[in-house]
């Protein structure tokens, strides 16, 4: 008997319209756990390196985390993996909500899509009955609208729906997959779904999910709930409020956005507005929030309320989460009311709330600077809000300039030429990032930005405080109940970390300490992504409810696979390495591993080189970022090592790696 997982994947070939229920190998679960881990294994095994995002051979995998559907609070994530049209690397965007547990109750751990349907279809999974159905009547419909229509049409109010909007249908490179209050947005996975001709996947399940050791498992879950209650009453002192409590950043609960609006950049990640938050703004935004927000809402089996139902008079209701609240507002130099209004349309279209606003701000900057001209924007309104609506409508339909912008800033700049690349300045590995521009290099963040393969900082950071505390006594107090650390040495790193002087950024934490810290941070996220655990209760936070000491027990008691801290870390390292191997096979190298050149004003090329050199070694990678043969064999990834040898990947001449581009790009810092 399989515990926590169902032991079956649903394999759907859209070209041949063939549906199979395939038993999975339990040894794969032991080696790669579930979710992201086993997704990566499927991609390695079945998607050859030369396959591009829109090839029929590309897989689009909806993987439920291994513990989804069990009692574990907040464990509800669907890990969607495919080859990204934006980065041409493996994308593994994730969503919370209700879809993954429903899939488990229907009797499946994953839905694996391959091939392409010539007509628009949707997939209806109702326990053992699975159908590919005509979706021609849903063409052009919004993602939320589609979910509503399908629930009514099937007369299944409890069915959970993952759907794409117009952006996915038209293969916009940053199209999302929407699921009511959640979405998997990064990496253009919605475009792959659209390319495969799938408008939606509807799931309803009424079967049991079993756990291996019920009493022990319940006890673990109760402890987590107790901790959540404790943290709610006792926020962590000395950090900004959104880091002091659990959950995704509690953007829906608050109206006071002084911190984000004055520290993040406006426009095309350019301008910091240090005096933005006035009393008038405070009053206006409070009113907007009060009028629009109907209720704070949660994902499946989670007490945190990170989302909200937003109902703006005259517009259809939608549900919002987290930071898309501000991305449109700030890109357009507008206000919260505009941000909430355009997010409604953007949610129905199904676009990534990080990339989409930045692409539009980028286009307007090109216009301002004469690289694009008024002829490229025929009929565009004069006002900033109107321009954003106009651009969004054209992007998702791929009309005129929208067709170029639909490919993201990197590819649009390639197409436009004339120095447009200087304006696609906030990307890592071709993907738009949060609009942050800072002063002093932070060595920990340097490594995370450079080497993270989620290519999105909020999905990598956590565990360790983002900056030093000024007073030693505050640091001591912080360490007093910091039981989540995997090793006591992390406390010492933090105790000694000063805002100024010898033991401050960028030379402290030392290069070796940075390696330890980043490796810990990354490991926790990768564990969550196999389990289906929300980072908001776990890896995103300092002092979280889930941590390295209780997570292995969840696997042991839940899935019945013996795990301890060492074993879970080893498994996470294995599939983390496999993700890297996939990207290496697709051409990713050290040269691609760098934060935006203008991310920090003060850069330290020698130190950065040392950081990467040391971290690569620490991770078992060679100096070009490629996992070494010995390391692959040690990880039990001999099949990867053999392919790398056969492909001659180790024979490549490693380029001179001191990042000269950093220096040449320094001028761009002054643009804002």
């Amino acid at each position, binding site marked *: 008997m399989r515990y926590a997982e169902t032991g079956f994947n649903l394999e759907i070939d859209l070209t041949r319209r063939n549906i199979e229920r395939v038993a999975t190998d339990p040894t794969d679960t032991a080696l790669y756990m579930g979710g992201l881990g086993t997704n990566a294994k499927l991609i390695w095994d079945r998607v050859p390196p030369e396959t591009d995002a829109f090839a029929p051979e590309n897989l689009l995998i909806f993987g439920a985390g291994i513990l989804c559907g069990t009692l574990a609070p907040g464990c509800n994530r669907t890990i969607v993996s495919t080859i990204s049209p934006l980065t041409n690397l493996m994308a593994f965007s994730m969503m919370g909500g209700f879809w993954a547990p429903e899939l488990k*109750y229907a009797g499946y751990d994953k839905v694996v899509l391959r091939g392409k349907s010539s007509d628009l279809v949707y997939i209806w999974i109702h326990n053992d009955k699975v159908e590919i159905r005509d979706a021609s009547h849903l063409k052009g419909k919004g993602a939320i609208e589609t979910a509503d229509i399908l629930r009514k049409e099937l007369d299944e109010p409890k069915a959970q729906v993952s759907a794409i909007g117009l952006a996915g249908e038209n293969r916009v490179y940053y199209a999302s997959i929407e699921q009511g209050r959640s979405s998997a947005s990064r990496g253009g996975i919605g475009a792959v779904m659209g390319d495969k001709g799938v408008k939606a996947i509807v799931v309803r399940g009424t079967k049991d999910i079993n756990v291996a050791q019920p009493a022990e498992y319940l006890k673990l879950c109760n402890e987590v709930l107790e901790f959540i*209650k404790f943290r*709610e009453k006792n926020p962590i002192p000395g950090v900004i409020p959104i880091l002091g409590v659990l959950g995704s950043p509690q953007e829906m609960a608050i109206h006071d956005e002084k911190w984000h609006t004055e520290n993040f950049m406006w426009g095309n990640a350019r301008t910091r507005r240090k005096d933005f938050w006035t009393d008038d703004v405070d009053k206006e935004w409070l009113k907007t929030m009060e009028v629009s927000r109907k209720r704070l809402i949660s994902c499946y*089996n989670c007490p945190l309320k990170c989302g909200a139902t937003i109902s703006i008079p005259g517009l259809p209701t939608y549900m919002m989460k987290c930071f898309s609240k501000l991305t449109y507002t700030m890109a357009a130099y507008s206000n919260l009311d505009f941000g909430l209004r355009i997010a409604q349309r953007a949610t129905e279209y199904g676009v990534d709330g990080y990339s989409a606003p930045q692409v539009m701000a980028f286009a307007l900057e090109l216009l301002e600077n004469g690289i694009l001209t008024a002829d490229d924007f025929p009929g565009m309104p004069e006002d900033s809000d109107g321009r954003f609506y106009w651009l969004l409508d054209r992007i998702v339909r791929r009309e005129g300039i929208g067709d170029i912008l639909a490919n993201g800033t990197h590819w649009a700049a390639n197409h436009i030429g004339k120095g447009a690349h200087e304006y696609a300045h906030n990307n890592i590995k071709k993907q738009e990032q949060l609009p942050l521009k800072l002063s002093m290099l932070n060595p920990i963040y340097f490594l995370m930005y450079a080497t993270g393969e989620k290519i999105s900082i909020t999905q990598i950071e956590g565990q360790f405080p983002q900056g030093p505390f000024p007073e030693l006594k505050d640091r001591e107090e912080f360490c007093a109940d910091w039981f989540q650390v995997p090793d006591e040495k992390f406390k010492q790193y933090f105790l000694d970390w000063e805002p100024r002087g010898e033991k401050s950024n960028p030379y402290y934490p030392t290069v070796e300490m940075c390696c330890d810290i980043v490796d810990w941070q990354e490991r926790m996220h990768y564990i969550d992504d196999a389990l289906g655990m929300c980072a908001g209760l776990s890896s995103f936070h300092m002092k979280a409810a889930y941590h390295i000491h209780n997570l292995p027990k969840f696997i042991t008691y839940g899935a019945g696979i013996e795990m301890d801290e060492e074993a879970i870390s080893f498994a996470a390292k294995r599939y983390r390495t496999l993700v890297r191997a996939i990207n290496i096979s697709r051409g990713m190298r050290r040269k691609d591993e760098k934060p935006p050149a203008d991310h920090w004003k003060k850069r330290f090329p020698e130190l950065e080189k040392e950081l990467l050199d040391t971290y690569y070694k620490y991770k078992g990678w060679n100096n070009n970022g490629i996992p070494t043969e010995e390391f692959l064999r040690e990880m039990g990834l001999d099949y990867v090592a053999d392919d790398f040898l056969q492909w001659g990947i180790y024979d490549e001449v490693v380029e001179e790696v001191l990042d000269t581009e950093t220096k040449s790009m320094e001028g761009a810092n002054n643009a804002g």
Partner: protein
Amino acid sequence: MQAEKKKKVIKTIRIDVDKCNGCRACEVICSSFHASPKYSSNNPARSRIRVIRDPIADIYVPVYAGEYAVAECAGRDKYTIDGKEYDECAFCRASCPSRSEFKEPDSGLPLKCDMCSSDPTLEQPLCVQWCLADALIYEEREEEVSEETTVDELEMGLDALANKYGLNKLNELLAKMTASKKG
């Protein structure tokens, strides 16, 4: 006959639909508690509490499984509360032919909330313990129940029968019933 007052504990769950965050933790823990062996599996489709939810309409109503009803209601009304339209079934505890709620998914047998009856008794039903949003609050109150009530009911019933059929007929029938019991 002397009317005797007895104290009875009434168990109540106070449901605040405005506080519900729609997470369905109540369904999750309920199905787990009632699994056999206890906590060994999860399946909200077996839960004895359901959150009747329509997120876009902002409707979230946790409802407990009550009595089994053989037939569905002749008419089903709609309620508008604070501008939101609710189907009458959104508040109904019955396991009935008109809907799939409160039935075992495999057998279709009706489910009924037992307030997590167990030995030893739980402090509070688990759905309440797992609802950190405080949408479900457990309360116990004592009510004084008079034994007399039942006597009154019998009297009222007999009186009604006597009025309808006449006292003589009733006497005859009672005598016959007494005789047949003895025989």
